[in-house]
């Protein structure tokens, strides 16, 4: 399945793009998607656990099993106000 992935804040600078598409086998989870993204964008790896992960408009853990149609967002810690 093809999962669209969007980047926000300085994750756009780290990856050099606002979004990409990552191909995963059926039943793949966010941990697998992150591993694939880090291969494509090695600087993403150094962000480690400070990376926040959303599917649609909700935060999800790395164990979340992705499905066709999911839209993943990866971004650094938030700081509104």
């Amino acid at each position, binding site marked *: 399945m093809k999962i669209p992935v*969007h980047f*926000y*804040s*300085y994750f756009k600078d780290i990856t050099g793009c606002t979004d990409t598409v990552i191909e995963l086998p059926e039943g793949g989870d966010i941990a697998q998607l992150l591993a694939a993204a880090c291969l494509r964008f090695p600087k993403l790896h150094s962000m480690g656990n400070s990376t*926040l992960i*959303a599917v*649609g*408009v*909700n*935060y999800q853990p790395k164990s979340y099993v992705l499905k066709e149609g999911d839209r993943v*967002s990866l*971004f*650094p810690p*938030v*700081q*509104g*106000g």
Partner: protein
Amino acid sequence: MQRSIVLTTDPLDVPALVAAGSRMEDMGAVIYFSGVVRRTENGISISGIEYEAFSAMAQHQLNLIIDEISARWSVGSVRLVHRLGWVPTNETSLWVEVIAPHRGESFLACQFLIDEMKKRVPIWKKPI
């Protein structure tokens, strides 16, 4: 409970927001909080802050926070306006209204809203 969440690139007109304030029966406490961009960020002089948001998620997460507020405290109204894009120093980036029957609840709910926003609402700032 009344609620309103606005994310906008327009400057915030605080007196107009207050004048358009929720008029509610039997609410004893009204708090307005304004967050203003300071001239310095982490000790470095800046001319303003560029705010970026993942707007759909920000709206959703703010709604979840307000759901939690209405479960925890008796609150009549929560309104939040966050400015996005370029905000020069000394201009308002965040405006919050909380109306509650009693003062204690209004302060707790207002601080909870802002604390949680800073933890989980996808808005980022870039001082320039």
